[in-house]
């Protein structure tokens, strides 16, 4: 769930407010993004991805608010990690999109499953076409 927006980092651009698919955020009276409907957050992490200032922090648990503070979020070393791994903005050159390798990874898993099954039970086979 969205836990905290670090006010010092927020530039008030409003990108996260627009991008949130569950309409959780607002630009507050101080001109910065604020959490307006926290219970509606679906923990999709996309607000972090859309924030060029790495000002938002989402905790992976979906059913409860942990109460992460801005200091804890900053100390976690995780702020901006999601946008970095996606290679957005300044990370484009260093974090290229390797998603296209997914098919080959599934194929490795499929072969491993066949090997394992063959070792345990020669009549078993497995397939992994249905992937997302």
């Amino acid at each position, binding site marked *: 769930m969205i836990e905290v927006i670090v006010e010092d980092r927020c530039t008030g651009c409003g990108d996260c407010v*627009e*991008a*949130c*698919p*569950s*309409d959780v955020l607002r630009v507050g009276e101080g001109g910065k993004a604020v959490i307006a409907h926290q219970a*509606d957050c*679906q*923990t*999709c*992490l*996309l607000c972090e*991805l*859309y924030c060029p200032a790495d000002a938002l922090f989402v*905790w*992976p*648990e*979906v*059913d409860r608010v942990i109460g992460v503070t801005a200091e804890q979020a900053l100390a*976690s070393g*995780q702020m901006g*990690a*999601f946008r970095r*791994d*996606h*290679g957005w903005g300044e990370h484009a050159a260093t*974090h*290229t*999109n*390797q*998603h*296209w*390798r*997914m*098919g080959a*990874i*599934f194929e*490795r*898993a*499929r072969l*491993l*499953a066949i090997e*394992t*099954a063959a070792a*345990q039970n020669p009549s*078993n086979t*497995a*397939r*992994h*076409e*249905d*992937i*997302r």
Partner: protein
Amino acid sequence: MSEPLSLATDVLVIGGGLAGAWAAVAAAQAGADVVLVDKGYCGTSGVTATAGPGHWWVPPERREAAVADRVQRALGLGDPEWMRRILDLTWTSLPKLSAYYDFSTDEAGQVQHRALRGPEYMAAMRAYALASGARILDHHPALQLLRHGDGSIAGATGLSLRGETPWTIRAGAVVIATGGVAFASRLLGAATNTGDGLLMGAEAGADLSGMELSNYYTPSVAGTNMARSMAYSFARWFDADDNELDIPNGPDVTPHLARALLRGPLFCRLDRVPEDIRAIMPQVQPNFVLPFDRMGIDAYRDRFEVTLHAEGTVRGIGGLRVDDQDCQTAVSGLYVAGDAASRELVTGAISGGGAVNSSWALSSGQWAGAAAARRARALGARADALVIATGQAGLSPRRKAGDFDAAGAIQAVREELNAYDKNIFRRGEALTASLERLDGVWRELSDHGQAKGRAALRLREAAALVAAGRWSKAAALARRESRGMHRREDAPAPDARLASRQRAQGLDRVFTRFETPPAQAEVA
């Protein structure tokens, strides 16, 4: 407070996920004025944006073999002609995205079109739709369809979440692309997938198909929604006492995991994931590694607890029934695309996973969008004609409006449609009990439910979830056999007389019927 929005257009697309965006592109490129309304934000809404779909990407020379294999696995419910159509269109469509999506090249310099990463894919689709001339209204959920006196579709009304003001859009044709229904589970990206389009379509007179095929499940770290399943294809599974369970990974893993979860906590180790894959995982699926990193779990060494999230019809199959080659529903002027439609034609009785489903979204979106554009340009929006609002439950109560517990209704849907013992291992008695409970919730909601602003949206979502749950239970009850993902513990074998698609319709009373009535069905 801003003024209510009222406008007329050729084509209205409801939903801005993968299928809706492709529909908007196709309709706009066919020369139509297009408005796309999204409950959230076109670019982050829906299950594609949080995922990374592969497509059914098969070179021409291998297609007949792929179709033959799929037809066999479709268990009597697929249609090879539709499979060929989506293979064709997938092959020609994805390269057109290269102006908006930075396709990777492999070591041999080959451009890789098959699998696109979700956030980048949907950002590209938004850009493509805008560049094609579509107008996008974010945070504008639709609440109901409008129809003409002759029954054809005339537009929709909804709510602008900013300012909580109503909108009315008159259109010559409407494409429903609201996604599947995840039955209020915690599935990643699916919080807005509440079946709104199924309810709106049914109220306008459309029917559904395949709603019994609505019980796909995906593992994720307990307490999180992170249903990126790739790494779990390497998993080893353990019980609470750390005994390794004999669960072979593969497409049939779900019942094994569900049985283990019904016995107690279930744990996983990913120590078989090869080192080279671990190293690139953050750049393949950045969101998969994130919960582990934040929660301090070493994903490839530690044992961690897992759960199974219900996907409903997302990676399940059922939805509004496609009635012609253009993806028109049974209602004139109402088209359906993506996971809001039944995908039986291309998937049969087994999941289309990401690959076939994505090809279906891309294809059905374009067919629906193009056909909607042709219709609208021929007939116009007829924006001055008097129209009838079709919305019922949650909008216009049949009795005295009163307090209705929408959260309680959603919880009932969760209990009846997420629970492994009720939805994976199905039995007639339990299905009947679920249906009776949901019928009761439906009556209460239709009799008394009414709300304003955001609460009105939540109430309509509850109504859609309950309606979809009832179609699912009724269809599962009538299919007294096991076929594909539909598993009846009290009828564990397939029945050759039921090798046929099953339709569902009705609101206050739910009906189902097989397309080929069992008495006349050929024995397969």
